[in-house]
């Protein structure tokens, strides 16, 4: 194994025993130093470690200091585990060789590794980060960006290292326990980081938000359902709810409808993949950029002057025989259901049952972005339908409409359901497009925007109540998703 170490026969046996337990690399322990020296080095290193942490704390970012503590915790954990394992090394070494050992003979190699690693951490990492920050700062001409860039590099190296270290370390710890305990415990150790993140950043805040929605602005006294009463009594919030309904209906219909139509049309042409890319690309841009793009499309000038918005220019040019007037798509609140007047939900607020044009304009921008998503999924479903089936129907004299209505549609229904639920969730959560196109004015606000408005003015109680309303709207979809997931699992 390790040639050249035969002279230290006793140490080799105990090292072999140790390595047999850890299964680690043999070469890494060549620089074995000896028990007392390692202990002294350990104390010095710990002092350096703590000292430098206190020293650097003022200067480094908060996250950096916390990482330091994590490293320290891992180090101490390793130390305790090794200490626990010492009797077993001795037993193992005594079993293999003729020589007898006591715990005094333990060379403590893992401690030495830890000491070296710590020295490296303390002496190398901060100066390296400092240099990196300086270089980046020079390159971008800003010390702030330099420091943040160095932090990014630290995270990129540090987070995977800490996670891999955590797994390797806990695996080493598990080796000290019986096999049944190992298989029972290992999954929880592997799940722990993810479950901790889920709990801290999703589950726990969700519970707190429920509680917060029953409290006043400062969060000190419970006010019962007052925040919800405010929501129901606020005309703006009700209009936001109406708009979310419009988003839900029209956004879902548009994205799934367009997506299905385009998937079926493109299935018949040879340039399918290039055309799909064109429809798909808007998904890669932000809602904000899309809002800018469509503000130019929807632009409106006074009738009679040249229209700079593409839509109105086309409208006026093509509609000139009937003297078509330009439409102010983003501001025009005319009711699209004018022919089909619905009864007022709440007397006096008639716009709650109206389909305002400007909302449809905003929804179309969203549909323009997300149709590609639906198209890709529906197209994959379409490709899964056997061509023989379709050909057989055509040979039997079915026309294209019948093929679509009787074969494609029923077979695609599960896929359509999946896509529709995804789109419904998007519609309920929509925020960016109204924020960037109208800032929620002109009766285009949505529930998510209402939440932001309350949040912005530190109305945390009301903001929480709005969030709960949003969650309540999404819960049915969530249950549908869970049921579908269980059905899929049952088929596995």
């Amino acid at each position, binding site marked *: 194994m390790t040639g050249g170490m035969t002279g230290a026969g006793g140490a080799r046996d105990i090292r072999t025993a140790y390595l047999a337990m850890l299964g680690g690399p043999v070469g890494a322990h060549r620089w074995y130093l000896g028990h007392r020296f390692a202990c002294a080095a350990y104390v010095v290193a710990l002092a350096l470690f703590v000292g430098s942490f206190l020293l650097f704390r003022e200067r480094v970012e908060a996250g950096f200091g916390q990482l330091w503590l994590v490293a320290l915790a891992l180090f101490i954990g390793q130390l305790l585990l090794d200490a626990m394992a010492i009797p077993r090394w001795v037993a193992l070494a005594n079993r293999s060789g003729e020589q007898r050992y006591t715990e005094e003979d333990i060379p403590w190699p893992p401690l030495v590794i830890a000491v070296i690693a710590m020295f490296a951490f303390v002496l190398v990492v901060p100066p390296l980060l400092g240099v990196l920050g300086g270089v980046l700062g020079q390159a971008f001409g800003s010390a702030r960006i330099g420091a943040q860039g160095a932090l990014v590099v630290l995270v990129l190296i540090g987070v995977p290292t800490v996670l891999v270290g955590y797994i390797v370390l806990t695996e080493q710890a598990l080796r000290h326990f019986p096999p049944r305990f190992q298989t029972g415990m290992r999954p929880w150790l592997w799940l722990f980081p993810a479950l901790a993140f889920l709990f801290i950043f*999703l589950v726990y805040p969700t519970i707190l938000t429920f509680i917060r929605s029953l409290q006043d602005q400062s969060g000190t006294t419970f006010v019962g359902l007052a925040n919800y009463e405010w929501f129901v009594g606020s005309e703006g919030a009700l209009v936001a709810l109406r708009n979310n309904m419009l988003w839900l209906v029209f956004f879902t219909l548009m994205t799934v409808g367009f997506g299905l139509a385009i998937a079926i049309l493109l299935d018949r042409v040879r340039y399918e993949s290039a055309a799909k890319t064109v429809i798909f690309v808007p998904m890669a841009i932000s809602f904000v950029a899309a809002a800018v793009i469509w503000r130019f499309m929807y632009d409106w000038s006074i009738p009679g002057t040249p229209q700079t918005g593409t839509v109105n220019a086309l409208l006026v040019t093509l509609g000139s025989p009937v003297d078509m007037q330009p439409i102010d798509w983003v501001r025009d609140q005319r009711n699209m259901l004018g022919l089909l007047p619905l009864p007022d939900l709440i007397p006096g607020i008639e716009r709650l049952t109206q389909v305002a044009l400007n909302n449809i304009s905003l929804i179309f921008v969203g549909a323009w972005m997300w149709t590609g998503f639906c198209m890709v999924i529906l197209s994959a479903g379409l490709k899964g339908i056997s061509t023989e089936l379709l050909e057989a129907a055509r040979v039997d004299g079915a026309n294209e409409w019948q093929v679509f209505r009787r074969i494609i549609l029923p077979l695609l229904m599960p896929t359509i359901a999946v896509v529709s639920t995804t789109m419904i969730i998007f519609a309920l959560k929509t925020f960016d497009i109204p924020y960037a196109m109208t800032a929620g004015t002109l009766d285009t606000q949505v529930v998510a925007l209402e939440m932001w408005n309350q949040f912005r003015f530190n109305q945390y109680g009301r903001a929480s109540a709005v969030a709960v309303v949003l969650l309540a709207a999404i819960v049915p979809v969530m249950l549908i998703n869970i049921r579908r997931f269980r059905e899929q699992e049952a088929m596995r």
Partner: protein
Amino acid sequence: MTATTEHREPGVPPLRRTPRWRQMLGRGPLHFVIALLLLLWLVPTFGLFVNSFRPGAAIRFEGWWTGLFPPWDFTLENYQHVLTAQGIGDAFVNSLILTIPATIIPITVAAFAAYAFAWMNFPFKNLLFVVVVGLLVVPLQMTFVPLQILFRDMGLAGSFIAVWLAHTGFGLPFALYLLRNFMGALPREVFESAAIDGASAPGAFFRLAVPMSVPAIAALAIFQFLWVWNDLLVALIFLGPNIPNHPLTVVLANLVNSLGGQWHFLTAAAFISMALPVAVFLLLQRYFVRGILGGSVKG
């Protein structure tokens, strides 16, 4: 289709072959409709692209299409202005600083847990994963108030670290879902024979599961990258008043509301914000498609 007509079963009457030119003509409306749809999807972006190279006065009084005809009057002024005066350059760097860790952290965290969900047995496994599926759709709004207070107490309010952590938490359910489904579909024999050969759990994970899951990890990385890069809401909430840290989406959204008459600068700013995600998307589209197919309609 030609194959089916040639390998007909005996007894089935031969299909009448329509002449090629009639076929082309009959499919004319199809190509026309597709061309219209493609135009509808291309023209908005193309119009903005043309406008971003035109001077402000021209944009205000003439549509973008007039810029295509001579006399040409293209300029880089809009780009120069937004990169220097409007802080778009800094915002681009901020977006990068925000996006890269917020992409790497959730994937690393999710990979181990996804492996545990896929290949280890433990009590409440299915129940826990159902919770993850439920968390997929919980509106982020439900977390903003408590998290904002938490970050403020930790002294992280307005810092990049807060946004990285938040995006990690928000991105985890999807990452777990996608990776677990992909890893679970890997062949069982591979892991069984590895276990017989004495591979430890980390050994099987690092040497088998991770290399075999590269397509899913790539899809996830693209997904998370696009989601964080294009995100407005989370950045708005957690970076809030810390203006120097604002990423592209926030700066762009603020410009929309503040520039008013100077719309021509918006065109260039929007294009700068689109450049990187669209490039990533076009280059890695195949992985991305595989990702959304794996995420929504499981194979």
